[in-house]
């Protein structure tokens, strides 16, 4: 479980996050949604330590991550897997080397054991046999799946996904969403997905935190989100023609 308490963050007198608190349970898919500039990626970066919040705390199973030094954070970071918006695969390394990288750094496994783990992770994301390809040889969807394989290589307790569907076609987006949900349930990870993709919201949003102008505006599930009368949330959720039509039928 991850808990955030009263997170504030400013950049050059522009307050991006304004006192956000929430709890993200394990075994369910937690979504952070909001329009562009609402602060969702900044919140994610504060949670994983890429930004230091101005005030507030981030607790990983009651371990306060915020005041820790780089060295103290390493133990928690070994339990974190992250899928980046652009996949962030290492260009100079093959798919196998990318997935093996955290294993090389933090485990004493033999090469055969590491190869087995790579094969297992690739099989899990349906990319068997792609071990020797370089990231430049992969499609956008395949890169995301390799990103997921790398994120789960160390059996993470916490899985973060930053816009996992950006730049993907709707069909591939659903594949990625389902993969994230399956992994969350299978390994009981605390999964936090930052997205503004309404298919993801409706498909996998067990818990949804809606940010608006840097504030926590609403929280609930995908079943509840269609029945709210909060104008800002409805403006966001039903912005597309498709969702408006779906709501009319609903």
């Amino acid at each position, binding site marked *: 479980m991850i808990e955030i308490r009263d997170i504030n963050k400013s950049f050059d007198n522009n307050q991006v996050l304004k006192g956000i608190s929430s709890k993200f349970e394990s075994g369910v898919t937690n979504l952070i949604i909001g329009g562009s500039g609402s602060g969702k990626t900044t919140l994610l970066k504060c949670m*994983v*330590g*890429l930004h230091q919040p101005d005030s507030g705390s981030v607790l990983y199973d009651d371990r306060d991550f915020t005041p820790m030094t*780089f060295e103290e*954070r*390493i*133990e928690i*970071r*070994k339990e*974190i897997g*992250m899928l*980046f*918006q*652009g996949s*962030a*695969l*290492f*260009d100079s390394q093959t798919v196998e080397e990318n997935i093996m*990288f*955290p294993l*090389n*750094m*933090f485990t004493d496994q033999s090469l055969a054991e590491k190869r087995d783990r790579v094969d297992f992770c690739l099989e899990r994301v349906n990319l068997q046999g792609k071990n020797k390809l370089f990231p430049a040889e992969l499609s956008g969807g395949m890169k995301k799946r390799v990103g997921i394989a790398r994120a789960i290589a160390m059996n993470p307790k916490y899985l*973060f996904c930053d816009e996992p569907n950006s730049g993907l076609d709707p069909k591939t987006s659903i594949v990625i969403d389902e993969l994230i949900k399956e992994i969350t349930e299978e390994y009981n990870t605390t999964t936090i997905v930052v997205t503004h993709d309404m298919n993801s919201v409706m498909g996998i949003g067990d818990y949804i935190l809606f940010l608006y102008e840097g504030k926590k505006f609403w929280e609930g599930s995908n079943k509840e989100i269609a029945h709210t009368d909060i104008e800002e949330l409805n403006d966001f959720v039903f912005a597309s023609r498709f969702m408006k039509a779906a709501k009319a039928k609903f």
Partner: protein
Amino acid sequence: MNFTNFGRYLLLLKAVFRRPEKLKIYIRELVKQMNYIGVGSLGLISIISTFIGAVMTLQIAFQLVSDFIPKTIIGSVNRDSSILELSPTISAIVLAGKIGSAISSEIGTMRVTEQIDALEIMGINAPGYLILPKIISGITMVPLLVIISMFLSITGGYIGGTLSGAVSPAEYMQGITTDFNPYTIVVALVKAFVFGFVITSVPAYEGFYVKGGAVEVSQASTRAVVVSCISILACDYIVTQLLL
């Protein structure tokens, strides 16, 4: 580089020299970088050094046309100029262009494509993993390249001088062996060590803090080469002042 940048540069260096997570991985990376910086630059340094030595000999011969000055001076002036200044400084400036821009672009691209964030989230000390092998390669391989450059520059002087008839082989050989002070080699190697540090750490700093996209990466790369060259010349003056 203003004071804020210099402070950030020092803080980055502090992070670079943290204890490595796994020495074996760093050593593998070090060998890769040594191959790139050292072996990869050998051809360029060889060509430049040979021609500079040849041109130096011809110019010294041109300027010292006098019956009162023995031609052996051509060899000794070329030797001392090559060892003390041309080999370390020209090699370093050329390497700043070749290696510096590559280091800055590589790290800058990793920054804008979130690869550095990925390393940090995994719990890896990104400055250490990315920059330390490059700095160690720089401070070990640049002195080796400078030694080769000295040899080739003096050899180039011999070839250029004798082919043009500016100096006879015997006079040139006598010149380069007369009054040789081995301390000049020490000064040159100290310079090479300092330059090796500069041409790896400055571009790494420029790349590491890039924000934006392709345009900013290319700007950082240009800035890396410019700042490295100015730093090389400043360090050249300081080392020369201190050691000679």
